[in-house]
């Protein structure tokens, strides 16, 4: 009987000690997800599958007067396989009401050129709402980026 009580006590003691450390391990999945999300956000990574073309538009306010704001629009685009196939592009920026702020820009990048700059003069009162960027290899489907600039 004494032996049984001792064993029982030992089991309770061990269980008590082990229970202290339950749920103490780092939750690896949640931890990783958080880092991945943070990293994707830093890179504005938006591709859900292998993209044939990496592309992005940078919008830079360069100068303004009482009436107008001039923006420099820089499109970067390159084939993801390092190939030299031409890239056709279209891009446009819109105000917060969905109205175009300046004319649609279109063209083609060839010979390994990966950057094009355009100028956009908009009414100073306009608030940038959205940018629409489309790129494709000739004859291919458009890859579309619809980037919102409003919180």
């Amino acid at each position: 009987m004494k032996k049984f009580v001792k064993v029982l006590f030992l089991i309770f003691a061990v269980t008590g000690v082990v229970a202290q450390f339950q749920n103490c391990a780092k939750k690896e999945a949640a931890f990783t997800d958080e880092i991945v999300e943070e990293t994707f956000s830093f890179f504005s990574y938006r591709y859900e599958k292998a993209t044939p073309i990496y592309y992005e538009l940078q919008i830079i306010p360069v100068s303004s007067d009482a009436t107008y704001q001039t923006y420099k629009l820089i499109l970067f685009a390159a084939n993801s396989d390092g190939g030299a196939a031409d890239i056709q592009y279209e891009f446009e920026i819109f105000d917060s009401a969905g109205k175009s702020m300046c004319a649609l820009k279109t063209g083609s990048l060839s010979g390994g050129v990966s950057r094009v700059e355009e100028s956009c003069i908009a009414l100073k009162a306009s608030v940038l709402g959205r940018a629409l960027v489309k790129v494709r290899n000739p004859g291919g489907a458009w890859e579309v980026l619809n980037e919102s600039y409003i919180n």
Partner: protein
Amino acid sequence: MRLLAVLLFLISTELQAQQILPLFQNDSLRTFVTMPFRLRKSTSEGIPIVSIKLVSALSECKAMIDPNITSNFLIRCESPASVSVDVYFEFNGVIQKIRYGPLTVAQISDTGVVVQPPAVTDKYKTGRELFAAKCMECHQSPYEKENKSFTQIKQSIQSVGEMNKLNVLTDAQIQAIRDYLNHLD
């Protein structure tokens, strides 16, 4: 001994054949730009990257492997920097390393001001992305189709010839597009 020398020579030749190609041109190495690079053989075939590690500019820049194209990696810096990166890949069952850089990342503009989109936290992200991927080839702006009901979108898909190809969308996806179109800023 001679065989070993030949083997070592062959391995070193093979290793030299691995190269990193910046996919954007050098004048695109700018702050705020997500710059893609590719690890490839001399035949242009991509080599899967095992891991990547920044060895300089740790506070200004980040690097990541493209999760969808594992031969490619991305670097982005928020301040001008001189960036070097170690790229690890497997060769003949052994992990090898290429140190790439230093690359000079310059300020994107003299004013240094860039309009950045807000962090993507919107709950209509799925609908927004579906609209961009499936609808914007014809509908240039979501504003031209705002406040549509689920039934209207579904009927359009079934009755408008050019939209028939969207029959693959599930009801949940159509609902996500509807939610997005009804909550435009």
